[in-house]
């Protein structure tokens, strides 16, 4: 069994990370009734005897003493991390795994990347090496950050290069929160484009998310629950969004519901690697199957179901509904339109009591309405995990490598150009040592190249499928 380390950078990253750890603990508590430290838990947690001072306290088997998250928390201002350390999750984090500063990055990518990157490079390396040493077999780094700010965006992407150099064999999965149209940070287009260049070059796989979609999902759930239309079949508190029964009992903070969705995404992504099932899918298989060309590693994710049904024995119709929902725009974590764009590959990760015949039937049913690229018509990757998520009897996570991310990127480029043409706010960046106008131009051209690749694939849609000649062999 392999281990993964979560690196949470910036305010957004740390807040999402906090929800993630909370949910992970709940999930393992629900599955692991006997309190034995097994391989599934070891993928994200260490078992430590806290009575031992220093590093010798690692216990690899037997009863759970004290679980420590395999995480590194980085933020350039102290507010968020302090709150985590004073909250109910304080015992889960090792105080030696934090890197904080006081002043913050001022929503400036250059400060995050160049200034703090240089300042904290050694410390970051040391913490990462430490966490890697605690792992038997480290497979993946999960980086959580936002693209619009300064720390998450700048320092977060600086990290990617460090990870690539130091741990070339370990996968880098990045969960990036993209700024929505009405973002309150004016310089977010600059930060995002500069960060995109790093993501293009150093990430193995990126799961883009935007706040607007998350917000829409929350509103939809609230509507469903409050309208009472579905009667007694829906439980009032959706466990996807609420932390009901969790450690935090105080009133929920505004972003909590949205962050819980992202936390669910990460847990479902790794479920088949942690738990048993009849068709397992490891993290390296995600990268192998969904990334046909190294540059095109942006995956659109959608999660179902979003609300908990009171009925445990789900009839087939409901199950099929789950599959249809996964391909509807309401359940996506980023605003895009995959149904009208070209699919390069698609992965379906199912959890719970779902069998292969249900999977096959639904793929057959949904295939005609989806456009797959000509050379990957059967481009489905499937996995079945027997352990359902907390509070649901089954769930589905769909990851699609689809050209529908192109409009999102183009819009981002638009916003960037509007600011850049007027050189607005540029001086904040250029006064940082190491930043020049060429950095901006390089970043834009990197993004344009990416958009061009998607364009070329889209163009093949209208071309007739040519029958490739078979090799002729002398018999």
């Amino acid at each position, binding site marked *: *069994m*392999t281990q993964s380390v979560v690196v949470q950078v910036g305010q957004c990253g740390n807040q999402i990370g906090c929800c993630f750890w909370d949910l992970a603990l709940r999930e393992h508590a629900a599955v692991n009734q006997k309190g034995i430290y097994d*391989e599934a838990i070891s993928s994200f947690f260490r078992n430590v005897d806290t009575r031992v001072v220093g590093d010798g306290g690692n216990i690899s088997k037997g009863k759970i003493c004290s679980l420590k998250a395999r995480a590194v928390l980085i933020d350039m201002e102290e507010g968020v991390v302090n709150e985590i350390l004073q909250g109910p999750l304080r015992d889960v984090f090792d105080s030696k795994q934090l890197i904080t500063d006081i002043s913050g990055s001022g929503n400036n990518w250059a400060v995050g990347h160049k200034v703090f990157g240089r300042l904290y490079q050694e410390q970051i390396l040391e913490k990462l090496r430490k966490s890697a040493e605690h792992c*038997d*077999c480290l*497979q993946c780094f999960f980086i959580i950050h936002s693209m619009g700010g300064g720390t998450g965006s700048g320092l977060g992407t600086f990290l990617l290069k460090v990870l690539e150099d130091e741990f070339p064999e370990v996968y880098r999965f990045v969960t990036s929160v993209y700024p929505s149209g009405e973002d309150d940070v004016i310089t977010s287009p600059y930060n995002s484009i500069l960060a995109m260049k790093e993501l293009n070059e150093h990430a193995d796989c990126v799961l883009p998310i935007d706040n607007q979609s998350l917000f829409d999902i929350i509103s939809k759930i609230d509507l469903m629950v409050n309208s009472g239309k579905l009667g007694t079949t829906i439980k009032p508190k959706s466990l996807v969004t609420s932390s009901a029964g969790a450690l935090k009992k105080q009133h929920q903070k505004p972003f909590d519901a949205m962050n819980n969705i992202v936390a669910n995404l990460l847990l479902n992504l790794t479920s088949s690697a942690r*738990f*048993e099932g*009849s*068709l*397992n899918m*490891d993290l*390296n*298989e995600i*990268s*192998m*199957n*969904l*990334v*046909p*060309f*190294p540059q095109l590693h942006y995956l659109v994710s959608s999660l179902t179901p979003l609300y908990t049904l009171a009925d445990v024995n789900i009839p087939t119709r409901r199950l099929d509904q789950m599959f249809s929902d996964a391909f509807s725009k309401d359940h996506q974590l980023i605003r895009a339109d995959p149904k009208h764009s070209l699919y390069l*590959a698609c992965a379906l990760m199912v959890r719970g009591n779902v*069998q*292969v*015949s*249900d999977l*096959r039937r639904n*793929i*057959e049913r949904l*295939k005609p309405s989806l456009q797959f690229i*000509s*050379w*990957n*018509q*059967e*481009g*489905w*990757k*499937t996995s*079945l995990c027997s352990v359902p998520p907390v509070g649901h009897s089954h769930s589905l996570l769909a990851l699609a490598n689809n050209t529908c991310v192109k409009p999102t990127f183009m819009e981002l480029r638009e916003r960037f150009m509007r600011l850049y043409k007027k050189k607005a706010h540029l001086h904040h960046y250029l006064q940082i040592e190491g930043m020049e106008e060429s950095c901006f131009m390089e970043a834009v051209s990197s993004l344009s190249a990416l958009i061009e690749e998607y364009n070329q694939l889209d163009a093949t849609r209208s071309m007739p499928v040519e*029958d*490739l000649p*078979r*090799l*002729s*062999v002398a*018999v």
Partner: protein
Amino acid sequence: MSIVTVQLGQCGNQIGFEVFDALYSDSHCPQGLCSKRENEVYQASCKERFFSEEENGVPIARAVLVDMEPKVINQTLSKAAQSGRWKYGQHSCFCQKQGSGNNWAYGYSVHGPRHEESIMNLIQNEVEKCDCLSGFFIIMSMAGGTGSGLGAFITQNLQDHYSNSLKMNQIIWPYGTGEVIVQNYNSILTLSHLYRSSDALLVHENDAVHKICAKLMNIKQISFSDINQVLAHQLGSVFQPTYSMEGSYHYRRNPLGELMENLVPHPEFKMLGIRNIPQMSENSLAYSTFTWAGLLKHLRQMLISNSKMEEGIDWQVRPPLSGLPTLGKVSLNRELHFNTSIANLVILRGKDVHSADLGKQKLRAYIHQYTKFGIEEEDFLDSFTLLEQVVASYCNL
């Protein structure tokens, strides 16, 4: 004579468990139509072939379990131990921490050489426990990374080290609508390598077995364990002891040898298919009767019309090749027939797989994942060429 089974990857291990379970339950089934003495002889023969004895009488399967990540092997071992009737040897499994990631190149070029010695040692141990080795039965899938890549590597190694023993590879052809995106690449590479080093390739398609489960066995929600049980049933009937010409109470001693002798006359034509009847759910068993003649007639019809099931036979047929010996057991019937139907399968699916592959390859899609581990484009080209040759030779028949 004994057969050593090598189970590779998730698919191989899951199927392998069901096969041993089926073999054991069949041989110890309380109802039987033969006399007691016949049953005892049969049991002894079956046992010797697949299980070795342990101190407290619990039979141990003659199997080596290999997987690159621990979950499936742990599950398989505990399921076997839980049944209480038979189990796997404690030291017959080999397992690593991180899987092959559906990457044939990783399985073949990285895991293969790295773990060659340990795995071959395990196999050596199993072989030494046998009085007389008939050959190897290797169970693997073609779509994944471990089963396909590592499987190809191991088969090659067995060819080098045990060149006098026969090897039969049981390969699982993935669903046509895709279970793994790079399954076409993995399948092509596997087939081409196996063709050079294996003695016979027994092919099962997930699609076909799925249909059998759906139509004939009336299972509403088909799970992989249902599919595997059907497969185990079919495989069991291939390997279970059959009467030899000397009359009853004497079982054929060399299962693999006899099969190969009759079914693989020419090394160019190695692919085999199974037709097994009757296939039905336990409930309908009480309402059906069989006669030997009826079963044989059905079987011939299935062969001629190239169908895998008794129902839905499509009657557009071409003149077939002559049949080969039927090996029968008391109440089951299956025929292992080398004929044009497998050829058709290879040609048809080969066409789909090829065109999908050529399309992908033209754009070099996913190739970077394979070149990372040392499989270059020439290797792909070699594989294509070999398989085209196979398809061409079958076409010529």
